[in-house]
Every structure is written in structure tokens, then in C-alpha cells.
């Protein structure tokens, strides 16, 4: 509860009580994505329920086993008069979007995000869009155990999170040119330990979700300039939709692999003369959902924080902000708007209703017409917190303005 006096409140409001009451929005719609199909359906659902709404969840049809699991299991445990799972593809999504919702929560690509927001506009429905982007790693000069830990965190974060198919997934690495050879060598070793020696022995890694995406990612390697830059990996298993962890060194910046979100297990390494150039590099591109920076240099950290914009910034790790519930999780610019996780989920599905309570006594005449110079002077003094002036005015000891045209 807030008290009058926390704001710049003139005398005119006294006495009063001010508070903000969160209330549910009503009937809300959640679109989940296919890459983390359980958590991206249930995490927003938790927010919607805790805020008191009724909910429809539409899981992604590209993850059909999870979709049918949710459709089957959720009604067994939750009140299915208020919480429903609706399965289906884009035709079902279109039909859902024709309805009037009090909120739509979408996780997915910017292209579909635009479609959702346009549909929502017809009903003035507020939306939260959790999109993606090319999330870069900036690697400053590190050595010894710090560098070893860094390489593990990069490998684990890139290929250990749905084989690179994640909105906060590592897209590419920016590093000083002279450090690139060491980085490539350490990454190779780490990949072999974590995920297996080659495509035949690949383990502990997700497959590409479907044929479309498999072909899309493979096509990124078709460009001859890109193919020539592969320094590790590059093989794939079409039948099992597997692509081995692949490292590229300085592919052409205008190739699709560097202009589109990769969303796959390919890791371009872009070399710079100086790590500070990374700031300009990132700013020349759309705001990503996350920036990962491995450095011990405090000045560089500050500079990066001040001069770049992204959904979030993580120093010396990858992906982990996802489980930190005290931090808002969301994008900016092309990576989306709105946020959730922790209390932010509750807030995102709530309306914060402002409430002001007044009492009947202590009427202030100067509020009401007919206006005159005295009343105007009273209010002017009240707004300036000039209580002495007010007292003088009330005692008739202060000169009053009687002309209407002089303010």
C-alpha cells in the first residue's frame, strides 16, 4: 500500500489512501514453441494460473509427442473448465487468433510474432512476445583453468541445449584473432568428450526437430565461402536428423549463416583485431535476446553494459539466466517485448489496478467553480507546497489576483 506523500502530492488530495491491486486479465492464450515444448507451455501457464486467469495453451505441432502428452495429462490434473490444451497446426492457431483474448503470450519466431501481434491488434489484446535473435558470445583473453571452464560452458551451452535450437542459444562467438586457434583446439577436445568423436558416435545431443529445419540448417553450409570455413564437424545423418557439432572460422559475414538466426549446432567464430570491436559488431545487428561475455576486465564489462542493448547480459556463463527467477526473462527490439519468470510471470498476466480512497470531510472550496482569483491563487500555492502563503491567503493577508486574464 502506498501513502500520499510518497508522490509530489499537493494538499488537495489529503486525506487519502492509495494502493495498487493486481487482478487477473481474464481469458488468456499461450502459444508454446517446439524446442522446450514442456517448459515453454507450462512456465507461462504457471504465471497465468497464479494471476487468476482462465487459460488456453496451444503447444507446437512440431513437437507432436509432447503436444499430445500435454493434451492428455493436463486435463487429468487441472480444472479443465478453466484450463484447456488445444492441439493443432497453423489452421488451429488462426482460428484461435480470431477470438477475443485478454492476453496472448507467444514464444517463437519474429515472423510469426508479427502475425500474432497484428491479430491481437483487432481486439486491443496486449501481448508478450518471447522471440529470439543471434545471441553472441564475446570471449576476452582468458587462460588456464578460466579458459577451460569457459570452453566447457560454451560447449555445454551451445550443443547441450537442444543442439543449438534455443532462443537464448549461443549463435556465434566473437574473439580476438590471436586466440582463435587455441579456442578451436579446446572446443574440439571438449566436443569429443561431451558429445562423441564423430557423427557415428554422437550422443547426449538432441536431433534437429524435423526435415524442414534439418534442410534449412544444412543449407547454411552450402555457400562455398561458408563450407570453406568449416574447421570441425560438418557431417550429418539425414535419416536420424542429426548434425554433428560444427565449428566455422570466419565465414563470410553476408552469408545466411551470419544474417539469420542459426537455430542449430553450427558455431561460427568471428575474429576481431580487438575484443572491444565486438560492441560495434553487435550494435550493427538487431538486439539479441542475450549477450554472453567471458571476461575479467571490469572496464570492458561496464562499457559493454552501457553501449549494447539486449534482453539480458550474462557474464562468464551461458544459458543459466533461464533458471534465475529473480531476473526478468524477455527481449527488446527484434527479440521481443514483455517478460516472465518468477513474479514477472504473475505480473505479466495481471492488471495492476490503481485505487484511491478519499473521505467525505475536508472539502476544499477552491476545487470548484465559479472560478476566481482567490481560488486560483489557493491552488497555485498548494501546488507549490507554499503553506505559509496559503495561510496568509486564508487570513486575507495576501494580495489576491482579481483580474481573470492574469494568471
Amino acid at each position, binding site marked *: 500500500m502506498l501513502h500520499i506523500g510518497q508522490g509530489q502530492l499537493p494538499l488537495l488530495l489529503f486525506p487519502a489512501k492509495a494502493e495498487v491491486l493486481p487482478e487477473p486479465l*481474464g481469458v488468456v492464450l499461450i502459444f508454446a514453441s517446439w524446442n522446450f515444448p514442456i517448459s515453454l507451455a507450462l512456465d507461462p501457464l504457471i504465471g497465468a494460473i497464479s494471476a487468476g486467469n482462465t487459460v488456453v495453451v496451444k503447444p507446437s505441432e512440431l513437437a507432436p509427442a509432447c503436444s499430445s502428452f500435454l493434451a492428455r495429462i493436463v486435463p487429468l490434473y487441472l480444472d479443465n473448465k478453466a484450463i484447456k490444451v488445444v492441439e493443432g497446426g497453423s489452421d488451429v492457431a488462426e482460428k484461435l487468433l480470431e477470438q477475443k483474448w485478454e492476453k496472448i503470450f507467444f514464444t517463437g519466431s519474429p515472423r510469426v510474432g508479427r502475425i500474432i501481434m497484428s491479430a*491481437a491488434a483487432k481486439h486491443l489484446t496486449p501481448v508478450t512476445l518471447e*522471440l529470439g535473435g543471434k545471441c553472441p558470445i564475446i570471449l576476452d583473453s582468458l587462460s588456464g583453468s578460466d579458459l577451460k571452464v569457459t570452453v566447457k560452458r560454451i560447449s555445454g551451452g551451445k550443443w547441450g541445449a537442444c543442439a543449438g535450437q534455443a532462443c537464448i542459444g549461443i549463435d556465434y562467438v566473437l574473439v580476438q584473432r590471436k586466440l582463435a586457434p587455441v579456442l578451436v583446439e579446446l572446443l574440439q577436445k571438449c566436443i569429443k568428450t561431451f558429445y562423441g568423436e564423430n557423427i557415428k558416435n554422437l550422443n547426449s545431443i538432441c536431433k534437429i526437430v524435423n526435415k524442414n529445419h534439418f534442410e534449412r540448417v544444412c543449407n547454411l553450409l552450402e555457400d562455398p565461402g561458408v563450407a570453406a570455413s568449416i574447421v570441425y564437424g560438418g557431417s550429418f545423418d539425414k535419416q536420424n536428423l542429426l548434425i554433428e557439432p560444427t565449428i566455422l572460422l570466419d565465414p563470410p559475414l553476408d552469408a545466411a549463416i551470419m544474417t539469420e538466426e542459426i537455430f542449430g549446432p553450427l558455431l561460427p567464430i568471428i575474429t576481431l583485431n580487438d575484443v572491444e570491436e565486438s560492441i560495434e559488431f553487435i550494435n550493427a545487428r538487431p538486439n539479441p535476446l542475450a549477450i554472453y561475455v567471458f571476461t575479467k576486465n571490469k572496464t570492458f564489462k561496464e562499457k559493454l553494459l552501457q553501449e549494447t542493448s539486449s534482453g539480458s547480459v*550474462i*557474464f562468464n556463463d551461458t544459458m543459466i539466466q533461464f533458471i534465475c527467477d529473480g531476473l526478468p526473462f524477455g527481449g527488446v527490439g527484434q527479440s521481443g517485448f514483455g517478460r516472465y519468470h518468477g513474479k514477472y510471470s504473475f505480473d505479466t498476466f495481471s492488471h495492476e489496478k*490503481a485505487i*484511491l*480512497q478519499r473521505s*467525505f470531510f475536508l472539502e476544499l472550496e477552491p476545487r470548484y467553480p465559479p472560478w476566481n482569483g482567490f481560488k486560483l491563487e489557493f491552488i497555485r500555492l498548494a501546488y507549490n507546497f507554499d503553506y505559509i502563503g496559503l495561510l496568509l491567503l486564508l487570513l486575507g493577508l495576501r494580495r489576491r489576483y482579481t483580474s481573470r486574464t492574469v494568471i
Partner: protein
Amino acid sequence: MALDMEGMMKELRGTYASGKPKSYEWRVSQLRALLKIADHHEKEIAEALRCDLNKPDHESFVYEIASMKSSCQLALKQLKGWMKPEKVKTSLTTFPSSGEIVSEPLGVTLVISAWNFPFLLSLDPVIGAIAAGNAVVLKPSEIAPATSAALSKLLGEYMDTSAVKVVEGAVPETTALLEQKWDKIFYTGNGKVGRIVLTAAAKHLTPVVLELGGKSPVVVDKNINLKVAARRIIGGKWGCNNGQACVSPDYLITTKDNASQLVDALKSELEAFYGKDPLKSEDLSRIVNSNHFNRLKNLLDDEKVSGKIVHGGQRDKTNLKIAPTIMLDVPGDSLAMNEEIFGPLLPILTVYKVEDSIDLINAREKPLAAYLFTNDKRLKEQFIRNVSAGGLVVNDTILHLAEHSLPFGGVGESGMGAYHGKFSFDAFSHKKAVLQRSFAGDIPARYPPYSPGKLKFLKALLNGDVVGLIRALIGW
């Protein structure tokens, strides 16, 4: 004069990229410049408002100039605190780590203003945009042309025009503006144009604040000081731009046995405020233009309300004036009950039990504000919990706008997003999450090859289960 939209956007993006608007000093200098405008040009502004709306000086001062200054002074006073990163507690799950939320500007923003409080509704959002470190373009409403011209001239003189611009014009200029890529759009107006703004914003994934309106109801209970209630209703309705306000009391609901006393109280206070011939009172704004005058005339002439007018009804077409008018027991399907009135007409609906008013209100679109006059604690609680609106006021009207610790915004048809006070700063900011981790304490359980032991450990860690962690560590 054709506006070079591309050139303007290029300049604004360049200024923003230079980092100038992000600095505390720049924001303070611009906020101070806005204060100077209000201080040194009060007369000019009041004259423009009189020209556009015949707004009485008293209203111009209270609702436009003093409100804007108060908003600006608050921002100046609290800006340092607002700009400070907010430390966030992190848990065992990410130990060791530290977290904070850093506020940063969004970039180049657009504020589209309305005609009814053309000074305040233009500059209040601009204050938020500047305080948050953005570049901003203001498009004042062409329906208040004198104020629009004054804003263009004054901001051109006092502000850093490489980052703060005013674009005047009507539909073509607004359409051209909406085709550009903005980092935030702030719109005050009606639902129809709100949809157009949101659709245009969707093309660029631009986040939007929409401050719209609706039919803000007033529920009047029995056993209250009717005189004070009447004065506060009148002050909030006719005393505030003659009913042409987004939070204006639109219609009243009271019990059938209370209606006639309420009407008498209103009539008596209306006469005290505006005299026997209100069309001659200088304390009432006029209707803004002939379009709106005709619209309101149609509401009055609707045959469904004939015989229901219990006070007022007089009009003066030449001077675009309509007298404060009260209509009793109008049908729910009358024109006046099917659109936001935005004028000096006040329908009164009557119910048998005062609690029924809550259902009546909830059957309609959510309004920007809802008001209740009562001494009954239970009714108050019921109303507060069950009526959904942008904001509620008990025992008064419209004053919640003056309390800057309260967010001002709508819900459903009355809008999305909020502002005022720190909420303005937040509306124009991106809250960037920052997590700092150390290299020490790296957990092997995170990485492949995966094993049941690693999974056990991680489960315990993610559940904050210290005992489970220890058990997993010692291999139990």
C-alpha cells in the same frame, strides 16, 4: 511543407547512437527546459487552450500546466534513483552469482497526443521518454491546432531538436509517422485509432502504450453526504473540460429510491457552480468542434431518451456549447449508453439494489476509471474486488491522476500499459537482466556425458535441496 521522414529518422537514430540522450546531464537539461517552457510561457499556453477549447484559466492551470510541472519536477528529483540498477537476489541454483536489473532507453520513440488536454497529454509522456534517455517525436493533435502550434514553436526553441522533435499534422502525417520503425509508441486517444496504431506497430514488433477511454461509471450509494458527492461528480465531469476527458464520469448508477435526491443535489450544485444560465458561464469549456457538437446533439435528440432529460438540454450551436444535461432512467440501448459520451451529458441509471450496479458495470467493456460514493465498507470492498477498470476512486472522481505513485492506464478496451511518476520512466525503458557468474565452483554435473548420478545432483541443486545435494555428492 512536406516532411522528410527518412531524413528525420536518420537524424534521430544518429543522435541516439551518439549516446547523448543516454547521459544523466542531457536528460536533466531537457527536463529543465520543459519546466522553463511552462514557467515562462504560461500565458501563451493558456491562450492557446482558450482558443482550442475555451478552457477556463483555472482548468488550464490545474489540469494542464501545474500537472505537467509537477510531473517534470518529480522526474528531476527522482531521476538519479530511477536510473540506478536494481540489485536482485540470486538463489542456490546459480551460486555463486550476482544479479541486477539495468534500466536502459529503448531508442527512438513516438508520442501521439490527444486534443482534450493537449498540453499535458503531449508533454507528460515526453517527460517519461526523456527521463528514460530516449529520442522522441511528439505528434500533437490537429484538433487542438493552437496548442499544437504553440508546442511546435516552444519545443523548437527550448529543446535539443536533434533528439526531441514536434511533427504537426493530421491523418497523412500520422500515417507516415506510423510507417517508420520506432522503439516505442505511446498513444492517447480512442479505441478505433488505437487499433490502427497497434497494427502499424506490429509490423516492426514495436511495443506500445495505449491510453484509451471508455464509459467510466459512478455508483452513488445511500446514506452519504449527497452535497459533497454531487460537487465532486460535477467537478470531475463538467469542471474538467466539460466532460471531454478519458476519465470523465460518463454515467451514474444509483438506487431507485435515491435517484430524486441525487438529481436535486446535482441540480442545486450545478446552479451554484454555473449559474442559472450555464451557456453564459465562463467556467465551462466549449465542445471542441462542430463534429463533436453534432455527435452530442444526436445523443440528446435520440428518441430513446426523449422525456428523460431532467435538467439542461440547451444548446448554442454558434458557440459550440451544450448546457450540463442530466438524463434519468435512460434505456441501456440508447445512443448515449452505447458510446463514450465525452461531453456534458450525464445519464443516470437506476437499480433496485445498489449491489446490482456491479453487474451492470461488468456487463460492459472495461472502462479507464470507475467511481463509488459510499460509507458502506462491505460495498466498498465488493466494488474494489469485483469491478475491473484501469483505476478506481472511492468517494471522489478523477483525482487518482494526481497521485504519481499510482500507475495510470487502462485494461481491455480502455488500453494497455501505464504511466505517471516512475511508471513513465519504466514505460520508456528496457529492463535489462544482468547476471554475473564466477569461474570458480563449476559443476561437472551440468555437462555431458550425462549419468544418473549427475541427474540426481542437478535435481537436488535445482530444488534447492541441500540434503539431497550432499547425498548426491557422497554418492548415496
